[in-house]
Every structure is written in C-alpha cells, then in structure tokens.
C-alpha cells in the first residue's frame, strides 16, 4: 500500500491548515454560504438532512489497521460511534460538527488519510477492483495507476471548478469488472496491445443519474506512459466545453453524446497532440516508484489446504456455505480472499460501529498483513488469509456479524443512505433494504437463486447504482408521497447494461411482495444453469410485468 513521503505529508498538513483557515472565515461570516460551499465540499463536508456529513477518502478502497483504529476513535470522539461505508469505497461520518472538522482532518492526516475531493465538482477518488493484486486473472495490479491518478488529480489547479463531479475507475481483469468502469466519467481498462505493451482502453462518458449511459470507447489503446497527459486532455476538453448552464446536463456524458464519441475523441486527440510529450508524460521510473509500494506481502510458501478444508466443510455446514459464497480464490497457493459482509439484517447496509472498526483492524492484523479493502458493494475484504486459518477466522467473525454468507446474493443489497440521512432523497432506501432482507432470510433459498444484484437509490442521483442492478429500485416522489420504481436487467461488469423500467411505481409496503414476484418468475422460467440475469435476457421483461401487475 502507498506510504506518504515528505512531499505528500507536507501537502496533507498544508491542506488541513488551509481548511482550518477557511472554516474560521466561514464561521466569522467572511465567506458567503455559496462561497464556502465548494471549499467544504472539496474537503468532503456536505450538509445533509439532519447534520453535516463528512466523507472520508479511502483511496481505491485500501485501509491499514492503524487507519481503521483512528477512524474508530474519530467516530467516538466526534460522532455517534459509527460510520458508514459508501458505494464509492469511501467512509462517511454522519454527525460531525462543522467546527470540529479541521481537527478531524488533522487526526486523519496523522495516519495518512484525508477527505480531499470526495465531493464537489472536481476529480473524485479513483476506484478499482477490490481484489486487485490478489486475483490471478489481472494483467497487472491496477492500484499503482490509481495512486498515480490520485496524485495528479489532487489539488489540480485547472480542474477544481469543473462543470460537475468527475469519477475515474480502473480495471485490470479481462473477465470481471468489479469497478464498473463503464458507468464512470472515465473508465480505464488495462490491456496489452499486439506488441505486448501495457496500456489502457479508454472509455469516456458513462454514468448513472438522470441520463444513465454506458461509456463508449474513445481510444482503444493508450500506452501507459501517456496516462496523465491523456487524462489532462480529456479533462481540459470537458472543462472548456462541458455545459455549465444546466446542472442536469453538465456531466461529461452529455458532452460526449452531443459531440458524438468520435467527435469528442477528435477534440481530445487534438489537445493531446500539444501536451503528449510534455514533462507531464510519465516515466518508467515514476511508475516503478509507485509500484514499489504495492509489492506482495511476505507470503509463506504453502500448498493449497484442500484436504483440510474439505474435512472442515464436511463437519460444518455453516462454514461450508460461507466458504462457498464469501471466500474467493487467491493467486497464491494456500491463501484465500475473504469478504466480510456488512449487510446483517437490521443494520443499514454499510454501517459499522467504532467497535466493529476496531474488530476489523484486529482481524486485519491477525489474518491479513494489517490491510483491508473497502468494496463498492459496501463490504470489507481481507485479501490475504491463509487457507488453514479460515475456519478460525470464520468462527471469530460470525458473532461479530460479518459472517453472513450472502455475498452477491439477493440480500447483499447496495443501498444509498436515502431519506433517512440524505437531503436530496425522494424516498427512504434503508427500510426497503431491511424489509427485503427480512423477507428473504432463508439462506438455502438465496443460494438456490444464485447471484442477484439488488441496488437501491433514494433518488435520481443514483448513489445506490440502481440502474446497473439486476434488480434496481429507485425512490420517487409522487405528490409528496414516497414510491419506488423498479427496473430489471441492469448489469455493471463488462456487459454493462442500464436496466429497463418495469412499469408504474409501488408503495413501500408492497416492495417485498414485488421483489418476491419477480423472483418467482425467475424461478419458474429459468433453466438449470441460468442466473437471474441470463433468464431475464432470454425471456425479456414481459413475463415479469405480467406477474407483478397481474
């Protein structure tokens, strides 16, 4: 994991001093509300329905145990003792006081954390696959590139006042896309060209929200050294020509659509021709320097613990299920990737208490070289667990509530904070997730259904990624009442698809039934090997419509 050098440290400290000064001026009335707004947003502070919220950056989802412990302490000292994992691999505090925020930021800076650019019309945290570096099918570890992008985008003087927010995601696996890059403003797929050189396929203009779009490719191959100059060109074209007259038309996807992907690409190429060979072009040494922070931990030389695990599974059904669903294959023999689920029924998806943060830190130290990853599904990954210690780990996490073996199942719901917390919401989202989790509490049945992404957003802003859920739920406001619109067939990986709206929306109390009917249709229509998405793609939306609106 990346470690700050004296430059990073210095800038982090300077940033805190700057925000302290800005906060003091705001409190003294020297900054008008709208003048302070982008300053606090770019420090992660936004005001929600009930209180300010502080969104803390977790660069590409990586956290060390000392950072988790510090977060726990901060939630205790400055908040109500819990935090929330967001759908962008960040962490949110729900109740900080405005006056305390500079102190919180100072505490974060001490452990190399910050909240820079986690909100506002700027380049946000770059996200990637939570299994980076430990899965066997990636071309290279994408995290060094994320770190390179993080540094380039941090306090970028030209791009602090973009038309709208801007999100970049990187993926390095050919088979999976856990980072959902095609629904980002820029999606970078790491590829090799015919000559075997490493580079990126560049997608621009994807996004959810009001006008969901899958990002078209604007460059098939970008050599790795050209990463930053090309990003700078895309951003410059966007900064200059993106719409600023209408907030809902200001994302880059609208510009790409207006110019056509070809027209947009041409503009970028023309800009790039000027700066391509500038000193901003990366050097192999610069990339190597960053890569040197992402080397492998001190793995033991092991064999796969196949027999031991088989025996343990045989003796323990719960462990068997957990292993099947929440544990993934690691690239090193004898190791495994473990996902801790934060989706226990009765707790809002992604919520963790201070104590749980500390428990996760302890688990990281004990089982996984002191590091964890936060996922956009709002879970936490221990990436380097020895197979011969899985049983022990499982026994430890079940009482903590992290062992629900529902990873990627229907009840592993992605859910935004919604109307309980968010000022923009049309409807609550957490109670819907809760009601669905309660309705589908039979694990055997869930396993039988297989992987189904159910995503819930409380409004069009789509923080819960409802468009790309196999089942998507969107809160809508009908004459002051909360209703829910359902869409089907969304997908976020390489086959990224925007879901189709099923029909008129439903009242909250009907939602578990509606989901049950949808599941019913799937169960009746599926062939043996089909996932929910496969069946949907084969039979189309009509059978679902008929059943739900019958």
């Amino acid at each position, binding site marked *: 994991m990346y470690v700050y050098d004296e430059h990073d440290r210095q800038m982090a400290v300077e940033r805190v001093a700057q925000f302290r000064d800005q906060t003091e001026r705001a409190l003294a009335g020297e900054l008008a509300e709208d003048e302070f707004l982008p300053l606090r947003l770019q420090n992660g502070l936004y005001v929600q329905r009930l209180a300010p919220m502080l969104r803390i950056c977790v660069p590409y989802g990586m956290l060390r145990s000392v950072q988790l412990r510090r977060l726990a302490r901060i939630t205790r000292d400055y908040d109500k003792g819990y935090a929330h994992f967001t759908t962008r691999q960040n962490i949110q505090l729900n109740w900080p006081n405005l006056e305390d925020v500079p102190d919180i930021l100072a505490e974060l800076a001490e452990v190399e954390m910050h909240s820079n650019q986690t909100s506002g019309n700027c380049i946000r945290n770059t996200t990637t696959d939570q299994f980076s570096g430990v899965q066997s099918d990636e071309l290279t570890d994408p995290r060094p590139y994320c770190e390179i992008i993080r540094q380039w985008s941090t306090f970028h003087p*030209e791009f602090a006042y973009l038309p709208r927010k801007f999100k970049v995601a990187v993926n390095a696996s050919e088979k999976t896309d856990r980072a959902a890059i095609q629904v980002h403003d820029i999606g970078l797929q790491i590829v090799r060209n015919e000559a075997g050189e490493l580079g990126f396929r560049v997608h621009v203009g994807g996004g959810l929200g009001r006008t969901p779009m899958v990002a078209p490719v604007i460059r098939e191959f970008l050599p790795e050294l050209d990463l930053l100059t090309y990003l700078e060109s895309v951003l410059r074209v966007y900064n200059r020509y993106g719409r600023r007259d209408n907030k809902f038309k200001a994302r880059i996807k609208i510009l790409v659509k207006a110019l056509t992907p070809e027209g947009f690409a041409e503009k970028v190429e023309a800009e790039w021709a000027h700066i391509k060979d500038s000193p901003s072009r*990366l050097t192999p040494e610069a990339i190597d320097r960053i890569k040197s922070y992402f080397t492998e931990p001190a793995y033991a030389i092991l064999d796969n613990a196949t027999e031991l695990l088989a025996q343990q599974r045989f003796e323990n059904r719960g462990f068997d299920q957990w292993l099947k669903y929440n544990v993934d294959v690691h690239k090193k023999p004898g190791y495994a990737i473990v996902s801790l689920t934060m989706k226990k029924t009765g707790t809002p998806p992604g919520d963790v208490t201070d104590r749980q943060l500390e428990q996760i830190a302890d688990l990281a130290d004990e089982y996984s070289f002191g590091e964890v990853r936060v996922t956009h599904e709002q879970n936490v990954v221990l990436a380097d667990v020895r197979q011969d210690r899985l049983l022990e780990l499982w026994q430890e996490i079940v009482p903590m509530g992290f062992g629900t073996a529902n990873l990627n199942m229907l009840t592993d719901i992605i859910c935004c904070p919604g109307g309980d917390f968010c000022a923009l919401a049309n409807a609550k989202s957490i109670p819907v997730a809760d009601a669905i989790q309660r309705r589908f509490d039979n694990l055997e049945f869930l396993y039988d259904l297989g992987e189904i992404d159910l995503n819930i957003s409380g409004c069009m802003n789509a923080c819960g990624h409802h468009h790309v859920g196999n089942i998507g739920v969107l809160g809508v406001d009908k004459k002051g009442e909360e209703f829910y619109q359902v869409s089907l067939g969304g997908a976020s990986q390489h086959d990224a698809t925007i879901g189709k709206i099923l029909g008129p929306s439903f009242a909250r109390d009907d939602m578990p039934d509606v989901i049950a009917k949808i599941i019913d249709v799937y169960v009746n229509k599926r062939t043996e090997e089909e996932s929910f998405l496969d069946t949907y793609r084969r039979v189309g939306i009509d059978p679902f419509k008929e059943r739900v609106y019958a």
Partner: protein
Amino acid sequence: MPDIIFRDGSIRQNQWNVVQRPENGEALDIPTQQRVLIPADLWVENRERFIGNDDVGAWLDSHDEPEILADYVNDLPMIAVNFPKFSDGRGYSSARLLRERFGFKNELRAIGDVLLDQLQFMKRCGFDTYELRPDKDIRKAARCLNFFSQGYQAATDTDLPLFRRRAS
C-alpha cells in the same frame, strides 16, 4: 479604482480599466488617457489600430476561446480573463493555454468574481495579477496564495510534476 494583488501577494495600484462590450449597434467607446482592456474579439477586429499601443489590452470572457488571440498574444500588453462567477472554471484552462500554448509573456490578469480561495489555482495557471472582488479583504490575499508550498502536477508555474522532482 480598487488595488490589485500581485502573484507574490503584494498589493499594487490598478491602472487598467475594463471596457465592457458595447450594446448592440453601439460603437466601442475607448476612454482616452487611460489604460484599457477591451473585449478580445474587438481588439482582434481592430488590431491595426491597437498593435503597438501599450495602453490597450484585451479581456476574454469565460466562454471566449483564447485561440482567437493565439497569433497576437505578445502584441498585447495585458490580457485579462473574466470569471463571471467564481465557480466557472473555464478561465483556468484559458490561462494555461495563453501561457503554455500561445506563449503569452506579458501580464495576465484575473477579473470578475475573483475571491481569495481561488487565488492559489489562478497563480498556478499563470495569472500574475488578481482584481479581488471589492468586498473581500485584500490583506488576506498573501496568506491564501501561499497555503501550499508545492503541487503534484505541472502547470504554468512549473513544468516539472512532482514525480520528476522526486526522481532528481
């Protein structure tokens, strides 16, 4: 006229007047015996008259393309870029293009809705002087310009990004 801020934080007397775009049909009225900034396209149109006149510069609005000045930048004693609203970030790109692409060497000024917390970015993008909105406290400018001792990226102030400085 309110004072202006220089990029090192010092405060100087302003000598330049911004001439607004004339209403439709009206002629450009240039006050004499003053140094003036006129809308960039009008400067270009009438450039024969202005080239060599060190008292007439041009200003670009945020939606104007700096490209219109590309061939003449150094015929201008000053170029100003207007920020109609501080949150309109187009002027940062305009500034960098004027400096880094078109090689503008004379004074580059930020005008309009210029506040304290944006000065650091303006400085990095190549602005030399800033006409602060009059209700803001000009004495705080020096502090706001200098919160950061360095940046990660190359910009107009340095063409070496941190990754190259780290290497040396």
